[in-house]
């Protein structure tokens, strides 16, 4: 394909999957995932991996960037032998808008509106990691209520993100019923977010120093209804999907990954847990108040598409468990830190106090002054480890704001999961790795 530069029609030529003849052996081995670090005794036998195929036996096809089942503008170039996938290469960057560069131009107050648009299926988690990185540099301690509000929203966001995944996964496998169900339940949670923040998505609600506002009156009732409804509907999903033979046949044993491969490829989140590694940052390296609530870390065994499905559907149950505990134990107090250098004063104070007006003006024009330093903060987003590496030079804007997007890193395990499978199963596997292209391309 397009080996001659003059016949190239795209601007990603060098990023595409190259011809076998033009590809070095070690690159072919990388593309088929056989150069992974394996434990002793598991060395890949070169004869197992037939990389010497003649050119006319195989065919390179493009899936995407506009394929409806690739969850955004993901382009996969696949080399096929008949219906069997041999090599895959994800080509990304179609949604790149330079958000890390934009982040350097925005103050810490404005920054949350920028990061919230990265992973558009779990915006609150993006805001959370940005706010936590800023607070770590500032060295401020949050009031208990702010921490628990964040935890409540973060778990509701996990439920909504997993419901959205159940919906799109159902659609990829041909179940439009599941799609409607997933969207229906998710909408309830988004309506609650709208009640809190005014927006269904891209909330800018979790900000450095706490949250933008306190929870609305009567939030307990709304959350109670959400918990009861989603829990009851999960039973319906189990009846509709989990036990269904057609679904099981399509996902069991498909797209399998071993624990060693997942670790070597830096995969995190449900992909890593599906291989049997009980790694959840909420449990292993607790942030917020996750060390004070009880929940189980769901792990799989085979690392296949069914395990990833089962992990997500059961994580919804665990999240409801956490939400219920937050409901019972929500502390009273302030929803943000009362530090005039970090959060703006209450609106009413501005009319009566000169200092309050000055602080308000300073925060919204200059931004917060954050001490010099570098910090890496990671949280467990629905897709895996969401990290933020932030460098401050002491001014009101981050000097460098790097987001470690779990989708971006997890995409690397796709060639390994797809190898040897069928093209039709590729759709199910792409879906089960749950990429959000806004976060991949940033």
């Amino acid at each position: 394909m397009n080996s001659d530069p003059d016949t190239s029609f795209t601007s990603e030529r060098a990023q595409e999957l190259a011809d076998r003849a033009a590809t070095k052996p070690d690159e072919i081995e990388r593309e088929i995932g056989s150069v992974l670090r394996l434990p002793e005794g598991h060395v890949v036998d070169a004869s197992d991996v037939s990389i010497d195929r003649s050119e006319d036996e195989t065919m390179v096809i493009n899936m995407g960037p506009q394929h409806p089942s690739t969850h955004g503008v993901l382009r996969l170039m696949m080399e096929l032998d008949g219906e069997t996938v041999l090599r895959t290469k994800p080509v990304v960057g179609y949604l790149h808008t330079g958000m890390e560069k934009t982040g350097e131009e925005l103050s810490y107050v404005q920054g949350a509106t920028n990061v919230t648009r990265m992973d558009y299926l779990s915006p609150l988690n993006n805001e959370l990691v940005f706010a936590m990185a800023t607070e770590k540099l500032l060295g401020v301690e949050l009031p208990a209520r702010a921490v628990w509000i964040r935890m409540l929203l973060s778990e509701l966001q996990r439920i909504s993100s997993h419901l959205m995944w159940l919906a799109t996964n159902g659609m990829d496998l041909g179940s439009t019923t599941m799609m409607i169900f997933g969207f229906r339940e998710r909408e309830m949670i988004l309506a609650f977010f709208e009640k809190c923040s005014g927006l269904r998505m891209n909330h800018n609600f979790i900000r450095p120093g706490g949250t933008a506002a306190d929870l609305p009156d009567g939030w307990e009732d709304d959350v109670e209804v959400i918990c009861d409804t989603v829990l009851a509907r999960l039973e319906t999903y189990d009846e509709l999907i989990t036990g269904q033979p057609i679904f099981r046949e399509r996902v069991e044993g498909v797209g399998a990954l071993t624990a060693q491969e997942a670790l070597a490829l830096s995969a995190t989140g449900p992909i890593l847990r599906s291989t049997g590694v009980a790694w959840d940052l909420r449990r292993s390296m607790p942030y917020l108040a996750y060390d004070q609530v009880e929940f189980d870390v769901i792990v799989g065994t085979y690392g296949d598409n069914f395990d990833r499905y089962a992990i997500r559907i059961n994580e919804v149950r665990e999240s409801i468990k956490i939400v219920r505990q937050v409901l019972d134990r929500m502390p009273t107090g302030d929803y943000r830190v009362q530090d005039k250098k970090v959060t703006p004063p209450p609106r009413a104070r501005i009319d009566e106090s000169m200092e309050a007006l000055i602080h308000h003006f300073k925060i919204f024009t200059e931004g917060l002054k954050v001490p010099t330093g570098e910090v890496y903060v990671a949280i467990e987003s629905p897709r895996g480890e969401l990290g933020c590496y932030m460098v401050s030079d002491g001014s009101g804007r981050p000097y460098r704001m790097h987001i470690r997007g779990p989708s971006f890193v997890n995409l690397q395990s796709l060639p390994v999961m797809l190898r040897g499978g069928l093209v039709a199963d590729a759709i199910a596997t792409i879906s089960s790795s749950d990429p959000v292209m806004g976060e991949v391309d940033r």
Partner: protein
Amino acid sequence: MDEPVPGTVSPPGRDQLPPRGVARVQGKDGEDVLFPTVERYHDVVDIYRSEGFELLSDLCGVDYLTHPGRVLPDGVRPERFELAVVLLSLTEARRVRIRVQVPEDDPQVPTVWDLFPGSEAMEREAFDMFGIRFVGHPDLTRILMPDDWEGYPLRKDYGVGRVPVQFKEAPGPR
């Protein structure tokens, strides 16, 4: 902090940590932050990998062009670029950060792809955004920007595009 001894190779064994001859400080979370030279970088990552840091969780570049006065331990010469790598140990639930100073006139770093295949996309991103070349990387091409793009967008001397604002009073096209 250990006395920097250039070129020291640690003997194999359990007690290789922290690697000798590498400047080290404590980060804000109490995690180790190491400052190896470009030459020792691959070696240090290898030591940590063999000591149970089995996941490379993040790799990114930083351009310190307009922030030269950052705090570095003694014996580490500040350079324009820096590579920040975060390794994670699942068994100890501990992170370690490795910061490598990369000179502007020769931005080359050995790849750690042979140790952590998961670093592949992240190294491509750092190359794409900062022009740091990873020697030995199997497929060092741009990943987010188009292949024919000129310049490295996240460098500090790369301009930010702006949309000109047309005020009513200003002389306009009409």
